[in-house]
């Protein structure tokens, strides 16, 4: 299977290029559009939380961006993965190729967009803050672990949405809910002590906390932190992969 997937590497590249072309064809700003959405969110939340709610977090914008961009990677991949098999029904019905390449291409496309946003916003952060924490060297490692986690979620969601079409809408509602249950615009310590354990059951809480550690607090993640993240990533991949393998033979019939 892995061998098959490697042989189809060119297909993965072609599919990601297709998504990029289709999304930005005929728009003058091109890839810059992918920066507009995070920019708008950063502005809205910064104004709302810093000047209206007056949240007690120093350099709030820096804190916000540390958690918001990785959340965006997760949320946009999950949303796009629900339709990644359905929009390619024509290909699935007519050609044999490893089916998992379609959700994988969706994740890769969103990862590229995220890295572009990081390349623009992370440097601007440190202009606001005045210094660069050395712990930023952990960023690529954490992003790689998150990419594995997101791939697992995308595999499971893409296959399940073929069987249950309304999962697409449920995912959107669920993501809005999950956004506010993840400490992105607030800090986990602000959550009432009795509820903190429940908040930690959310895998995105673990990821976002580590991102805030390395990009905002300048604290290196502990070995325990890494174990938790790897645990989430491996579990998501196992569950997503199992669901996907069970549905894959019937995709061409069910679509």
């Amino acid at each position, binding site marked *: 299977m892995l061998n098959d997937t490697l*042989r*189809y590497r*060119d*297909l993965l*590249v*072609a*599919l990601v290029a*297709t998504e990029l*072309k*289709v999304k930005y*064809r005929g728009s003058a700003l091109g890839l810059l559009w992918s920066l507009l959405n995070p920019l708008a969110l950063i502005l809205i939340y910064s104004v709302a939380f810093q000047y209206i709610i007056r949240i007690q977090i120093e350099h709030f914008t820096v804190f916000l961006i540390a958690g918001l961009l990785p959340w965006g990677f997760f949320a946009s991949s999950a949303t796009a993965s629900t339709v990644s098999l359905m929009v*390619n029904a*024509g*290909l*699935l*019905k*007519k*050609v*044999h*190729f490893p089916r998992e390449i379609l959700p994988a291409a969706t994740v890769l496309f969103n990862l590229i967009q995220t890295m572009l946003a990081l390349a623009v916003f992370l440097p601007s952060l440190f202009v606001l803050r005045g210094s660069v924490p050395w712990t930023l060297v952990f960023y690529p490692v954490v992003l790689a672990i998150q990419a594995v986690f997101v791939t697992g979620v995308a595999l499971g969601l893409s296959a399940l949405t073929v*069987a*249950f*079409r*309304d*999962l697409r809408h*449920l995912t959107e509602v669920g993501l809005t809910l999950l956004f506010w249950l993840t400490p992105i615009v607030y800090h986990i310590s602000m959550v009432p002590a009795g509820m903190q354990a429940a908040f930690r059951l959310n895998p995105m809480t673990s990821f976002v906390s580590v991102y805030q550690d390395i990009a905002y607090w300048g604290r290196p993640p502990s070995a325990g932190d890494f174990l938790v993240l790897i645990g989430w990533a491996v579990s998501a991949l196992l569950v997503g992969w199992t669901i996907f393998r069970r549905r894959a*033979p*019937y995709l*061409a*019939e069910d679509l």
Partner: protein
Amino acid sequence: MTPAIEVRNLWKRFVLRHNRAETLKSRIMGVFDSRLRERRETFWALQDVTLSVQQGETLGLIGPNGSGKSTLLRLIARTHYPTRGSVTVRGRVSPMLEIGIGFHQELTGQENIYLNGSLLGLSRREVERLYPAIVEFSELEDFIDVPVKNYSSGMHARLGFSIAAHLDPDVLLIDEALSVGDEGFQRKCQERMQQFRARGVTIMFVSHNLRTVASLCDRVCLLVHGKVEALGPVDAVVSRYQELTAAMTSGAERMLGPELSPRSGDVL
């Protein structure tokens, strides 16, 4: 000689889902209200089909609508999976199922050639090498940088056949693809198929045009209700099919009276 395609005791069951519960909501509602519950009916599209195609042989597949011809081709192309039995194919398969391969409507003809090449397992470099020949054969030079959504169905078919025809396949699967496109292009396709035969490519060919089948195929397989009704020399199987069709048509005439009987084309 080892066969290029081996189909052994192949069964394929489709589940027809009446009132299909496509959403979680309808699944849940079905628990409370039996009228909303999904009714499932199984349908055997292929029943115990066994056949093999030798390397370099062209096998024609004929039979009435709904007899399982396209299903058999899909199973050989591995887009669908057997319920029971097995399919073994040796070599690179180039499928031409329905009209065109899967095209992405927003992409241009050129971009689709590259995408389809990689879908069929070719590297980018291989597609680059084949690209000029594909465009020339399709005669779409002037439209190659136009999105495929603006193509006519004939242009779709031409691009699809051109890609499939240039992939240097070991096994070519063709489902009614030649019936699209103008006469000139159809003739070109048939010439191309003759070239493939001469080169030793194994071809499996579904068509309702018995004359084309007779001129292109070495052997013919007749499928009826998902079972192999006859398999052998072209003349014998084609005349068996014509007898069968005649029997079905006169049977229908007797039952319905002459004015209500469907034209033979509808029965096929």
